[in-house]
Protein backbone atom coordinates (compact mmCIF):
# COMPACT_ATOMS: atom_id res chain seq x y z
CA UNK A 1 0.00 0.00 0.00
CA UNK A 2 1.35 3.45 -0.79
CA UNK A 3 1.83 5.20 2.53
CA UNK A 4 -0.20 8.43 2.96
CA UNK A 5 1.62 11.75 2.59
CA UNK A 6 2.77 13.13 5.91
CA UNK A 7 4.47 16.11 7.46
CA UNK A 8 6.47 15.47 10.59
CA UNK A 9 8.95 17.07 12.86
CA UNK A 10 11.74 15.42 14.80
CA UNK A 11 12.20 16.64 18.38
CA UNK A 12 15.38 16.20 20.37
CA UNK A 13 13.71 15.85 23.77
CA UNK A 14 10.29 15.00 25.22
CA UNK A 15 9.66 18.52 26.48
CA UNK A 16 9.88 20.07 23.00
CA UNK A 17 7.92 17.10 21.67
CA UNK A 18 5.21 18.00 24.15
CA UNK A 19 5.22 21.58 22.90
CA UNK A 20 4.96 20.41 19.30
CA UNK A 21 2.03 18.25 20.27
CA UNK A 22 0.18 21.09 21.93
CA UNK A 23 0.91 23.32 18.90
CA UNK A 24 -0.76 20.81 16.60
CA UNK A 25 -3.71 20.55 18.94
CA UNK A 26 -4.11 24.29 18.91
CA UNK A 27 -4.29 24.08 15.11
CA UNK A 28 -7.39 21.89 15.59
CA UNK A 29 -5.77 18.92 13.89
CA UNK A 30 -7.71 15.87 14.99
CA UNK A 31 -5.60 13.52 17.07
CA UNK A 32 -6.73 10.79 14.60
CA UNK A 33 -4.35 12.30 12.02
CA UNK A 34 -1.47 12.88 14.42
CA UNK A 35 1.31 10.29 14.47
CA UNK A 36 3.97 9.91 17.18
CA UNK A 37 7.05 7.69 17.27
CA UNK A 38 9.76 7.33 19.91
CA UNK A 39 12.59 4.98 20.82
CA UNK A 40 11.22 4.53 24.33
CA UNK A 41 7.91 4.78 26.09
CA UNK A 42 7.37 8.25 27.53
CA UNK A 43 4.46 7.30 29.72
CA UNK A 44 4.44 10.58 31.64
CA UNK A 45 4.31 12.94 28.63
CA UNK A 46 1.07 14.07 27.06
CA UNK A 47 2.16 13.22 23.48
CA UNK A 48 2.47 9.57 24.57
CA UNK A 49 -0.92 9.57 26.22
CA UNK A 50 -2.78 8.57 23.06
CA UNK A 51 -5.17 5.61 23.00
CA UNK A 52 -4.39 4.11 26.40
CA UNK A 53 -7.63 2.18 26.47
CA UNK A 54 -7.42 -1.54 25.73
CA UNK A 55 -9.58 -4.54 26.64
CA UNK A 56 -6.44 -6.69 26.55
CA UNK A 57 -6.80 -7.98 30.16
CA UNK A 58 -10.36 -9.04 29.46
CA UNK A 59 -9.43 -10.70 26.20
CA UNK A 60 -6.65 -12.54 28.03
CA UNK A 61 -9.10 -13.69 30.68
CA UNK A 62 -11.48 -14.91 27.97
CA UNK A 63 -8.58 -16.72 26.32
CA UNK A 64 -7.87 -18.38 29.66
CA UNK A 65 -11.45 -19.57 29.90
CA UNK A 66 -11.35 -20.94 26.36
CA UNK A 67 -8.02 -22.68 26.99
CA UNK A 68 -9.30 -24.12 30.23
CA UNK A 69 -12.40 -25.45 28.52
CA UNK A 70 -10.28 -27.09 25.84
CA UNK A 71 -8.06 -28.60 28.55
CA UNK A 72 -11.01 -29.93 30.47
CA UNK A 73 -12.61 -31.40 27.36
CA UNK A 74 -9.32 -32.92 26.19
CA UNK A 75 -8.79 -34.63 29.52
CA UNK A 76 -12.42 -35.60 29.97
CA UNK A 77 -13.15 -36.81 26.45
CA UNK A 78 -9.96 -38.79 26.01
CA UNK A 79 -10.57 -40.56 29.29
CA UNK A 80 -13.98 -41.53 28.02
CA UNK A 81 -12.78 -42.27 24.51
CA UNK A 82 -10.16 -44.68 25.84
CA UNK A 83 -11.56 -45.91 29.13
CA UNK A 84 -8.97 -48.06 30.84
CA UNK A 85 -8.88 -48.99 34.49
CA UNK A 86 -5.56 -48.38 36.17
CA UNK A 87 -4.57 -48.79 39.80
CA UNK A 88 -8.19 -49.07 40.90
CA UNK A 89 -8.72 -45.43 39.99
CA UNK A 90 -11.95 -44.10 38.44
CA UNK A 91 -12.05 -43.86 34.66
CA UNK A 92 -12.79 -40.15 35.05
CA UNK A 93 -10.07 -39.04 37.43
CA UNK A 94 -10.89 -35.59 38.81
CA UNK A 95 -7.53 -34.39 40.09
CA UNK A 96 -5.48 -35.07 36.97
CA UNK A 97 -8.24 -33.51 34.88
CA UNK A 98 -7.91 -30.44 37.08
CA UNK A 99 -4.19 -30.25 36.47
CA UNK A 100 -4.53 -30.45 32.69
CA UNK A 101 -7.36 -27.91 32.77
CA UNK A 102 -5.24 -25.53 34.82
CA UNK A 103 -2.21 -25.73 32.54
CA UNK A 104 -4.21 -25.14 29.39
CA UNK A 105 -6.03 -22.24 31.05
CA UNK A 106 -2.74 -20.47 31.56
CA UNK A 107 -1.58 -21.38 28.08
CA UNK A 108 -4.78 -19.96 26.62
CA UNK A 109 -4.37 -16.70 28.50
CA UNK A 110 -0.76 -16.26 27.42
CA UNK A 111 -1.38 -17.05 23.77
CA UNK A 112 -4.40 -14.75 23.47
CA UNK A 113 -2.40 -11.97 25.09
CA UNK A 114 0.33 -12.30 22.50
CA UNK A 115 -2.14 -12.54 19.63
CA UNK A 116 -4.08 -9.50 20.88
CA UNK A 117 -0.84 -7.55 21.14
CA UNK A 118 0.16 -8.33 17.58
CA UNK A 119 -3.28 -7.56 16.18
CA UNK A 120 -3.89 -4.32 18.05
CA UNK A 121 -0.43 -3.02 17.17
CA UNK A 122 -0.78 -4.22 13.55
CA UNK A 123 2.42 -6.26 13.87
CA UNK A 124 4.09 -7.70 11.99
CA UNK A 125 4.04 -5.01 9.33
CA UNK A 126 7.18 -4.88 7.23
CA UNK A 127 5.68 -2.71 4.51
CA UNK A 128 5.07 0.62 6.24
CA UNK A 129 7.11 3.44 4.69
CA UNK A 130 6.14 5.91 7.42
CA UNK A 131 9.20 5.84 9.65
CA UNK A 132 12.39 7.74 10.28
CA UNK A 133 15.50 6.05 11.53
CA UNK A 134 16.32 9.23 13.47
CA UNK A 135 13.76 7.88 15.96
CA UNK A 136 16.06 5.17 17.15
CA UNK A 137 18.73 7.82 17.70
CA UNK A 138 16.50 9.26 20.39
CA UNK A 139 14.58 11.76 18.30
CA UNK A 140 10.83 11.90 18.86
CA UNK A 141 8.76 12.01 15.73
CA UNK A 142 5.49 13.96 15.69
CA UNK A 143 3.61 14.40 12.45
CA UNK A 144 0.31 14.77 10.67
CA UNK A 145 -1.10 12.23 8.21
CA UNK A 146 -2.13 13.51 4.77
CA UNK A 147 -2.61 17.16 5.67
CA UNK A 148 -4.74 19.39 3.36
CA UNK A 149 -2.43 21.33 1.05
CA UNK A 150 -3.76 24.51 2.68
CA UNK A 151 -2.63 23.45 6.13
CA UNK A 152 0.82 22.19 5.13
CA UNK A 153 2.66 25.48 5.57
CA UNK A 154 1.04 26.23 8.91
CA UNK A 155 1.83 22.77 10.30
CA UNK A 156 5.47 23.09 9.29
CA UNK A 157 5.70 26.49 11.02
CA UNK A 158 4.05 25.25 14.17
CA UNK A 159 6.35 22.20 14.37
CA UNK A 160 9.42 24.40 13.84
CA UNK A 161 8.07 26.88 16.32
CA UNK A 162 7.68 24.13 18.89
CA UNK A 163 11.40 23.37 18.47
CA UNK A 164 11.55 20.53 15.99
CA UNK A 165 15.17 20.06 15.00
CA UNK A 166 14.03 18.98 11.57
CA UNK A 167 10.75 18.98 9.65
CA UNK A 168 10.19 16.65 6.77
CA UNK A 169 7.29 16.24 4.35
CA UNK A 170 6.39 13.56 1.85
CA UNK A 171 4.60 15.10 -1.14
CA UNK A 172 1.77 13.17 -2.82
CA UNK A 173 2.16 15.03 -6.10
CA UNK A 174 5.52 13.46 -6.98
Amino acid at each position, binding site marked *: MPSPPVIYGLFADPESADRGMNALHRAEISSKKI*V*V*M*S*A*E*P*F*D*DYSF*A*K*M*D*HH*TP*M*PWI*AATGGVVGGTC*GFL*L*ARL*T*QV*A*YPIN*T*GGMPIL*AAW*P*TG*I*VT*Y*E*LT*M*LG*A*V*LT*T*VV*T*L*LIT*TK*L*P*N*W*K*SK*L*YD*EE*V*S*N*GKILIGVLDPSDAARAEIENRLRGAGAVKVKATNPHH
Partner: protein
Amino acid sequence: MATKSAEQITIDLLRPLSGISGRWAFAVAILGGVVVAALSAFGYQIYAGLGVSGLRMPVFWGFYITNFVFWIGLSHAGTLISAILRLANATWRRPVTRCAEVITVFALSIGATFPLIHLGRPWLAFFLFPYPSERGIWPNIRSPLLWDFFAINTYLISSVTFLLLPMVPDFALVRDRAEGMKKKIYGVLALGWTGTPKQWHRLETAMHIMAIAVIPVAVSVHSIVSWDFAMAPVPMWHSTIFAPYFVAGAIFSGIAALILAMALLRKFLHLEEYLLPIHFENLGKLLLVMSLLWFYFVFAERLTAWYGNESSEMAVFWTTQHGSYSPLFWTMVCCNFLIPFPILAIKKLRTITGTAIASFTVVIGMWLERFLIIVPSLSHKYLTYSWGTYRPTWVEITITAGTFCAMALLYMIFSKIVPIISIWELKAGQHLKTQAVRLVVRSSEAGAD
Protein backbone atom coordinates in the same frame (compact mmCIF):
# COMPACT_ATOMS: atom_id res chain seq x y z
CA MET B 1 24.43 5.32 35.22
CA ALA B 2 22.00 8.19 35.38
CA THR B 3 24.79 10.20 33.90
CA LYS B 4 24.89 8.00 30.83
CA SER B 5 23.23 9.44 27.77
CA ALA B 6 20.76 7.30 25.83
CA GLU B 7 23.27 7.34 22.98
CA GLN B 8 26.01 6.01 25.22
CA ILE B 9 23.78 3.21 26.48
CA THR B 10 22.92 2.22 22.94
CA ILE B 11 26.53 2.12 21.89
CA ASP B 12 27.70 0.15 24.95
CA LEU B 13 24.99 -2.42 24.73
CA LEU B 14 25.19 -2.94 21.00
CA ARG B 15 28.96 -3.41 21.10
CA PRO B 16 28.83 -7.17 21.75
CA LEU B 17 26.77 -7.64 18.59
CA SER B 18 29.49 -6.32 16.33
CA GLY B 19 32.15 -8.86 15.41
CA ILE B 20 33.44 -11.89 17.31
CA SER B 21 36.73 -12.18 19.16
CA GLY B 22 39.13 -15.10 18.76
CA ARG B 23 38.64 -15.94 22.41
CA TRP B 24 34.90 -16.17 21.83
CA ALA B 25 35.32 -18.42 18.80
CA PHE B 26 37.70 -20.68 20.75
CA ALA B 27 35.30 -21.06 23.62
CA VAL B 28 32.46 -21.83 21.22
CA ALA B 29 34.57 -24.48 19.52
CA ILE B 30 35.39 -26.19 22.83
CA LEU B 31 31.82 -26.11 24.10
CA GLY B 32 30.50 -27.18 20.72
CA GLY B 33 32.87 -30.13 20.76
CA VAL B 34 31.51 -31.37 24.06
CA VAL B 35 27.95 -30.91 22.87
CA VAL B 36 28.66 -32.95 19.76
CA ALA B 37 30.24 -35.65 21.92
CA ALA B 38 27.11 -35.72 24.05
CA LEU B 39 24.89 -36.00 21.01
CA SER B 40 26.93 -38.91 19.67
CA ALA B 41 26.75 -40.57 23.08
CA PHE B 42 22.99 -40.29 22.90
CA GLY B 43 23.06 -41.68 19.38
CA TYR B 44 25.10 -44.61 20.60
CA GLN B 45 22.60 -45.19 23.39
CA ILE B 46 19.73 -45.28 20.92
CA TYR B 47 21.62 -47.74 18.74
CA ALA B 48 22.86 -50.09 21.45
CA GLY B 49 20.07 -49.76 23.99
CA LEU B 50 19.71 -48.18 27.38
CA GLY B 51 22.09 -50.84 28.68
CA VAL B 52 24.97 -48.51 27.93
CA SER B 53 23.81 -46.39 30.84
CA GLY B 54 24.53 -47.38 34.43
CA LEU B 55 20.88 -47.96 35.23
CA ARG B 56 19.99 -51.31 36.75
CA MET B 57 17.54 -52.96 39.06
CA PRO B 58 16.25 -51.38 41.27
CA VAL B 59 17.58 -47.93 40.30
CA PHE B 60 15.71 -47.33 37.06
CA TRP B 61 16.17 -43.56 37.17
CA GLY B 62 19.61 -41.99 37.55
CA PHE B 63 21.60 -39.16 36.00
CA TYR B 64 19.06 -38.43 33.29
CA ILE B 65 16.16 -37.70 35.59
CA THR B 66 18.52 -35.90 37.96
CA ASN B 67 19.46 -33.60 35.10
CA PHE B 68 15.82 -33.25 34.12
CA VAL B 69 14.83 -32.00 37.57
CA PHE B 70 17.96 -29.91 37.88
CA TRP B 71 17.55 -28.04 34.61
CA ILE B 72 13.82 -27.53 35.01
CA GLY B 73 14.63 -26.16 38.44
CA LEU B 74 17.27 -23.86 37.03
CA SER B 75 14.75 -22.52 34.55
CA HIS B 76 12.97 -20.87 37.46
CA ALA B 77 15.71 -18.26 37.48
CA GLY B 78 14.47 -16.01 34.81
CA THR B 79 10.85 -15.75 33.95
CA LEU B 80 9.69 -16.24 37.50
CA ILE B 81 12.13 -13.78 39.02
CA SER B 82 11.80 -11.15 36.33
CA ALA B 83 8.03 -11.49 36.50
CA ILE B 84 8.08 -10.96 40.24
CA LEU B 85 10.39 -7.98 39.89
CA ARG B 86 8.27 -6.48 37.11
CA LEU B 87 5.14 -6.71 39.22
CA ALA B 88 6.99 -5.37 42.24
CA ASN B 89 8.14 -2.65 39.83
CA ALA B 90 11.66 -2.86 41.20
CA THR B 91 13.55 -0.48 38.98
CA TRP B 92 16.91 -2.12 39.55
CA ARG B 93 15.53 -5.13 37.71
CA ARG B 94 15.83 -3.44 34.30
CA PRO B 95 19.35 -4.58 33.39
CA VAL B 96 18.68 -8.02 34.88
CA THR B 97 15.45 -9.26 33.39
CA ARG B 98 16.56 -10.30 29.94
CA CYS B 99 19.63 -12.32 30.88
CA ALA B 100 17.40 -13.97 33.46
CA GLU B 101 14.67 -14.84 31.00
CA VAL B 102 17.23 -16.28 28.59
CA ILE B 103 18.34 -18.72 31.26
CA THR B 104 14.76 -19.89 31.59
CA VAL B 105 14.27 -20.56 27.93
CA PHE B 106 17.54 -22.44 27.46
CA ALA B 107 17.49 -24.36 30.73
CA LEU B 108 13.91 -25.39 30.09
CA SER B 109 14.63 -26.59 26.57
CA ILE B 110 17.61 -28.57 27.83
CA GLY B 111 15.68 -30.05 30.74
CA ALA B 112 12.79 -31.00 28.51
CA THR B 113 15.02 -33.19 26.36
CA PHE B 114 15.86 -35.55 29.22
CA PRO B 115 12.50 -37.30 29.38
CA LEU B 116 13.25 -38.28 25.79
CA ILE B 117 16.90 -39.16 26.39
CA HIS B 118 16.01 -41.49 29.25
CA LEU B 119 13.36 -43.44 27.31
CA GLY B 120 13.94 -47.10 26.58
CA ARG B 121 12.45 -46.62 23.12
CA PRO B 122 12.87 -42.91 22.33
CA TRP B 123 11.73 -43.49 18.76
CA LEU B 124 8.25 -44.04 20.18
CA ALA B 125 8.23 -40.86 22.24
CA PHE B 126 5.30 -39.58 20.18
CA PHE B 127 3.11 -42.06 22.07
CA LEU B 128 3.07 -39.36 24.77
CA PHE B 129 1.35 -36.77 22.61
CA PRO B 130 -2.41 -36.47 22.98
CA TYR B 131 -3.48 -36.72 19.37
CA PRO B 132 -6.07 -38.90 17.67
CA SER B 133 -3.86 -41.68 16.35
CA GLU B 134 -4.55 -44.70 14.19
CA ARG B 135 -3.85 -46.74 17.33
CA GLY B 136 -7.00 -45.29 18.84
CA ILE B 137 -5.10 -44.86 22.10
CA TRP B 138 -4.96 -41.68 24.11
CA PRO B 139 -2.23 -41.07 26.68
CA ASN B 140 -2.98 -41.76 30.32
CA ILE B 141 -4.01 -38.49 31.94
CA ARG B 142 -3.42 -40.07 35.37
CA SER B 143 0.31 -40.31 34.76
CA PRO B 144 2.36 -37.45 36.24
CA LEU B 145 4.50 -37.68 33.12
CA LEU B 146 1.51 -36.41 31.16
CA TRP B 147 1.16 -33.53 33.61
CA ASP B 148 4.82 -32.78 32.95
CA PHE B 149 4.09 -32.75 29.26
CA PHE B 150 1.38 -30.10 29.63
CA ALA B 151 3.09 -28.04 32.31
CA ILE B 152 6.48 -27.89 30.64
CA ASN B 153 5.05 -27.00 27.27
CA THR B 154 2.93 -24.23 28.78
CA TYR B 155 5.89 -22.88 30.69
CA LEU B 156 8.17 -23.08 27.68
CA ILE B 157 5.75 -21.25 25.39
CA SER B 158 5.09 -18.58 27.99
CA SER B 159 8.77 -18.06 28.72
CA VAL B 160 9.72 -17.85 25.07
CA THR B 161 7.10 -15.19 24.33
CA PHE B 162 7.92 -13.45 27.60
CA LEU B 163 11.50 -13.23 26.39
CA LEU B 164 10.78 -12.35 22.78
CA LEU B 165 8.23 -9.53 23.09
CA PRO B 166 10.50 -7.00 24.82
CA MET B 167 13.22 -7.85 22.32
CA VAL B 168 11.26 -6.44 19.36
CA PRO B 169 12.00 -2.71 20.04
CA ASP B 170 15.68 -3.54 20.47
CA PHE B 171 15.65 -5.41 17.17
CA ALA B 172 14.22 -2.26 15.62
CA LEU B 173 17.10 -0.32 17.14
CA VAL B 174 19.66 -2.69 15.68
CA ARG B 175 17.83 -2.61 12.35
CA ASP B 176 18.12 1.16 12.14
CA ARG B 177 21.82 1.07 12.93
CA ALA B 178 22.79 -1.82 10.72
CA GLU B 179 23.66 -2.09 7.05
CA GLY B 180 22.99 -4.62 4.28
CA MET B 181 22.16 -8.19 5.16
CA LYS B 182 22.20 -7.56 8.87
CA LYS B 183 19.68 -4.77 8.37
CA LYS B 184 17.38 -7.10 6.46
CA ILE B 185 17.52 -9.84 9.08
CA TYR B 186 16.93 -7.54 12.02
CA GLY B 187 14.29 -5.78 9.97
CA VAL B 188 12.38 -9.02 9.79
CA LEU B 189 12.93 -9.70 13.49
CA ALA B 190 11.71 -6.20 14.38
CA LEU B 191 8.35 -7.00 12.77
CA GLY B 192 8.24 -3.41 11.46
CA TRP B 193 8.23 -1.89 14.92
CA THR B 194 7.96 1.90 14.77
CA GLY B 195 7.48 2.84 18.38
CA THR B 196 4.12 4.57 18.38
CA PRO B 197 2.68 5.24 21.84
CA LYS B 198 0.08 2.59 21.09
CA GLN B 199 2.71 -0.06 20.44
CA TRP B 200 4.61 0.91 23.56
CA HIS B 201 1.53 0.81 25.70
CA ARG B 202 0.18 -2.48 24.38
CA LEU B 203 3.60 -4.06 24.81
CA GLU B 204 3.82 -3.00 28.41
CA THR B 205 0.27 -4.12 29.11
CA ALA B 206 0.97 -7.50 27.53
CA MET B 207 4.16 -7.90 29.59
CA HIS B 208 2.18 -7.07 32.70
CA ILE B 209 -0.50 -9.67 31.99
CA MET B 210 2.05 -12.33 31.18
CA ALA B 211 4.02 -11.52 34.30
CA ILE B 212 0.88 -12.29 36.25
CA ALA B 213 0.20 -15.47 34.29
CA VAL B 214 3.70 -16.89 34.30
CA ILE B 215 4.24 -16.96 38.06
CA PRO B 216 1.58 -19.59 38.86
CA VAL B 217 2.70 -21.56 35.80
CA ALA B 218 6.27 -21.66 37.04
CA VAL B 219 5.09 -22.78 40.46
CA SER B 220 2.90 -25.49 38.92
CA VAL B 221 5.74 -26.77 36.74
CA HIS B 222 8.04 -27.64 39.56
CA SER B 223 5.23 -28.88 41.75
CA ILE B 224 4.38 -31.33 39.00
CA VAL B 225 8.01 -32.32 38.58
CA SER B 226 8.03 -33.11 42.29
CA TRP B 227 4.87 -35.16 41.87
CA ASP B 228 6.68 -37.42 39.41
CA PHE B 229 8.24 -38.71 42.61
CA ALA B 230 5.66 -38.01 45.28
CA MET B 231 2.98 -40.00 43.42
CA ALA B 232 4.94 -43.26 43.74
CA PRO B 233 4.90 -45.27 46.98
CA VAL B 234 8.67 -45.13 47.35
CA PRO B 235 10.29 -44.49 50.73
CA MET B 236 11.01 -40.75 51.21
CA TRP B 237 9.26 -39.89 47.94
CA HIS B 238 5.67 -40.29 48.97
CA SER B 239 5.52 -36.98 50.81
CA THR B 240 3.27 -33.90 50.77
CA ILE B 241 6.18 -31.56 51.34
CA PHE B 242 7.67 -32.34 47.95
CA ALA B 243 5.88 -29.72 45.84
CA PRO B 244 6.88 -26.62 47.87
CA TYR B 245 10.23 -28.25 48.60
CA PHE B 246 10.96 -28.57 44.90
CA VAL B 247 9.67 -25.10 44.02
CA ALA B 248 11.82 -23.50 46.67
CA GLY B 249 14.81 -25.52 45.51
CA ALA B 250 14.12 -24.51 41.95
CA ILE B 251 14.05 -20.80 42.70
CA PHE B 252 17.12 -21.28 44.87
CA SER B 253 19.15 -22.85 42.07
CA GLY B 254 17.60 -20.43 39.60
CA ILE B 255 18.82 -17.31 41.39
CA ALA B 256 22.25 -18.88 41.79
CA ALA B 257 22.42 -19.57 38.08
CA LEU B 258 21.32 -16.00 37.35
CA ILE B 259 24.01 -14.49 39.56
CA LEU B 260 26.63 -16.69 37.93
CA ALA B 261 25.48 -15.73 34.46
CA MET B 262 25.45 -12.03 35.32
CA ALA B 263 28.92 -12.19 36.83
CA LEU B 264 30.27 -13.81 33.68
CA LEU B 265 28.46 -11.39 31.35
CA ARG B 266 29.69 -8.47 33.36
CA LYS B 267 33.26 -9.65 33.00
CA PHE B 268 33.31 -10.81 29.40
CA LEU B 269 30.94 -8.24 27.83
CA HIS B 270 32.37 -5.35 29.90
CA LEU B 271 29.02 -4.39 31.37
CA GLU B 272 30.58 -3.07 34.56
CA GLU B 273 28.54 0.12 34.29
CA TYR B 274 25.29 -1.71 33.82
CA LEU B 275 25.45 -4.78 36.05
CA LEU B 276 26.30 -2.99 39.26
CA PRO B 277 27.23 -4.31 42.68
CA ILE B 278 23.73 -3.34 43.78
CA HIS B 279 22.25 -6.02 41.52
CA PHE B 280 24.45 -8.71 42.99
CA GLU B 281 23.78 -7.30 46.42
CA ASN B 282 20.02 -7.54 45.97
CA LEU B 283 20.03 -10.93 44.27
CA GLY B 284 22.48 -12.09 46.94
CA LYS B 285 19.96 -11.22 49.63
CA LEU B 286 17.31 -13.12 47.69
CA LEU B 287 19.67 -16.13 47.48
CA LEU B 288 20.28 -15.91 51.20
CA VAL B 289 16.57 -16.10 51.89
CA MET B 290 16.20 -19.10 49.59
CA SER B 291 19.16 -20.83 51.22
CA LEU B 292 17.48 -20.50 54.59
CA LEU B 293 14.21 -21.66 53.08
CA TRP B 294 15.93 -24.67 51.50
CA PHE B 295 17.51 -25.60 54.80
CA TYR B 296 14.15 -25.29 56.48
CA PHE B 297 12.55 -27.66 53.99
CA VAL B 298 15.33 -30.24 54.29
CA PHE B 299 15.06 -30.05 58.04
CA ALA B 300 11.28 -30.39 58.00
CA GLU B 301 11.44 -33.35 55.60
CA ARG B 302 14.10 -35.18 57.57
CA LEU B 303 12.59 -34.46 60.95
CA THR B 304 9.20 -35.88 60.02
CA ALA B 305 10.82 -38.96 58.48
CA TRP B 306 12.93 -39.48 61.57
CA TYR B 307 10.06 -39.09 63.99
CA GLY B 308 7.84 -41.28 61.84
CA ASN B 309 10.55 -43.93 62.18
CA GLU B 310 8.98 -46.08 59.49
CA SER B 311 11.58 -48.77 58.81
CA SER B 312 11.67 -48.50 55.01
CA GLU B 313 12.00 -44.70 55.20
CA MET B 314 14.63 -44.97 57.89
CA ALA B 315 16.68 -47.19 55.62
CA VAL B 316 16.86 -44.39 53.07
CA PHE B 317 17.27 -41.82 55.83
CA TRP B 318 20.30 -43.52 57.32
CA THR B 319 21.94 -44.45 54.06
CA THR B 320 22.08 -40.75 53.25
CA GLN B 321 22.96 -39.71 56.79
CA HIS B 322 25.63 -42.26 57.63
CA GLY B 323 25.59 -44.79 54.85
CA SER B 324 27.06 -45.06 51.39
CA TYR B 325 25.42 -41.83 50.21
CA SER B 326 26.45 -39.73 53.19
CA PRO B 327 29.51 -38.13 51.53
CA LEU B 328 27.28 -36.75 48.82
CA PHE B 329 24.66 -35.71 51.34
CA TRP B 330 27.01 -33.71 53.51
CA THR B 331 28.68 -32.16 50.49
CA MET B 332 25.22 -31.02 49.46
CA VAL B 333 24.58 -29.48 52.87
CA CYS B 334 27.89 -27.60 52.68
CA CYS B 335 27.23 -26.38 49.14
CA ASN B 336 23.67 -25.28 49.78
CA PHE B 337 23.95 -23.88 53.27
CA LEU B 338 27.17 -23.98 55.24
CA ILE B 339 29.23 -22.22 52.56
CA PRO B 340 26.76 -19.78 50.98
CA PHE B 341 25.07 -18.74 54.23
CA PRO B 342 28.01 -16.85 55.78
CA ILE B 343 29.08 -15.41 52.44
CA LEU B 344 25.64 -14.00 51.79
CA ALA B 345 24.83 -13.06 55.35
CA ILE B 346 27.95 -10.96 55.96
CA LYS B 347 27.59 -7.68 54.05
CA LYS B 348 31.34 -7.41 53.55
CA LEU B 349 31.38 -10.70 51.73
CA ARG B 350 28.25 -10.06 49.70
CA THR B 351 30.36 -8.70 46.87
CA ILE B 352 30.17 -9.67 43.23
CA THR B 353 32.86 -12.31 43.69
CA GLY B 354 31.31 -13.44 46.96
CA THR B 355 27.84 -13.93 45.54
CA ALA B 356 29.32 -15.60 42.47
CA ILE B 357 31.21 -18.12 44.62
CA ALA B 358 28.13 -18.78 46.74
CA SER B 359 26.05 -19.25 43.61
CA PHE B 360 28.57 -21.69 42.19
CA THR B 361 28.42 -23.93 45.25
CA VAL B 362 24.63 -23.70 45.29
CA VAL B 363 24.39 -24.87 41.69
CA ILE B 364 26.53 -27.90 42.54
CA GLY B 365 24.64 -28.49 45.77
CA MET B 366 21.27 -28.40 44.07
CA TRP B 367 22.37 -30.91 41.44
CA LEU B 368 23.45 -33.21 44.26
CA GLU B 369 20.13 -32.64 46.01
CA ARG B 370 18.20 -33.85 42.95
CA PHE B 371 20.46 -36.90 42.73
CA LEU B 372 20.06 -37.64 46.43
CA ILE B 373 16.30 -37.40 46.21
CA ILE B 374 16.14 -39.92 43.39
CA VAL B 375 18.81 -42.59 43.77
CA PRO B 376 18.99 -43.52 47.49
CA SER B 377 15.23 -44.00 47.65
CA LEU B 378 15.16 -46.21 44.58
CA SER B 379 18.08 -48.31 45.77
CA HIS B 380 16.50 -48.90 49.18
CA LYS B 381 12.91 -49.92 48.64
CA TYR B 382 10.86 -52.13 50.92
CA LEU B 383 12.27 -55.62 50.34
CA THR B 384 15.91 -55.65 51.38
CA TYR B 385 16.56 -58.50 48.95
CA SER B 386 15.85 -56.10 46.11
CA TRP B 387 18.30 -53.48 47.35
CA GLY B 388 20.91 -52.35 44.90
CA THR B 389 23.17 -49.53 43.90
CA TYR B 390 23.94 -47.36 40.88
CA ARG B 391 27.03 -46.24 39.03
CA PRO B 392 26.80 -43.88 36.05
CA THR B 393 28.66 -44.79 32.88
CA TRP B 394 30.65 -42.57 30.54
CA VAL B 395 27.56 -42.21 28.37
CA GLU B 396 25.54 -40.58 31.12
CA ILE B 397 28.46 -38.44 32.24
CA THR B 398 29.15 -37.25 28.70
CA ILE B 399 25.53 -36.36 28.10
CA THR B 400 25.36 -34.54 31.43
CA ALA B 401 28.52 -32.55 30.67
CA GLY B 402 27.10 -31.87 27.24
CA THR B 403 24.04 -30.16 28.65
CA PHE B 404 26.12 -27.78 30.78
CA CYS B 405 28.21 -26.91 27.75
CA ALA B 406 25.08 -26.53 25.63
CA MET B 407 23.78 -24.01 28.15
CA ALA B 408 26.97 -21.94 28.00
CA LEU B 409 27.12 -22.25 24.23
CA LEU B 410 23.56 -21.09 23.66
CA TYR B 411 24.13 -18.23 26.04
CA MET B 412 27.28 -17.09 24.29
CA ILE B 413 25.65 -17.20 20.89
CA PHE B 414 22.56 -15.43 22.15
CA SER B 415 24.59 -12.59 23.61
CA LYS B 416 26.14 -12.09 20.16
CA ILE B 417 22.75 -11.78 18.47
CA VAL B 418 20.60 -9.92 20.94
CA PRO B 419 21.47 -7.09 23.33
CA ILE B 420 21.71 -9.04 26.57
CA ILE B 421 20.36 -6.05 28.45
CA SER B 422 17.05 -4.58 27.33
CA ILE B 423 18.13 -1.24 25.92
CA TRP B 424 14.74 0.43 25.70
CA GLU B 425 13.79 -0.63 29.19
CA LEU B 426 17.05 0.79 30.49
CA LYS B 427 16.42 4.07 28.70
CA ALA B 428 12.86 4.20 29.94
CA GLY B 429 14.28 3.71 33.40
CA GLN B 430 16.27 6.89 32.98
CA HIS B 431 13.13 8.92 32.47
CA LEU B 432 11.29 7.74 35.52
CA LYS B 433 12.88 10.68 37.22
CA THR B 434 11.95 10.24 40.81
CA GLN B 435 13.03 6.64 40.81
CA ALA B 436 16.06 7.56 38.80
CA VAL B 437 17.22 9.90 41.51
CA ARG B 438 16.86 7.22 44.15
CA LEU B 439 18.71 4.87 41.87
CA VAL B 440 21.58 7.33 41.51
CA VAL B 441 22.01 7.60 45.24
CA ARG B 442 21.74 3.86 45.82
CA SER B 443 24.03 2.86 43.00
CA SER B 444 26.68 5.38 43.98
CA GLU B 445 26.58 3.84 47.45
CA ALA B 446 26.82 0.44 45.93
CA GLY B 447 29.62 1.62 43.74
CA ALA B 448 31.41 2.89 46.83
CA ASP B 449 32.10 -0.53 48.30
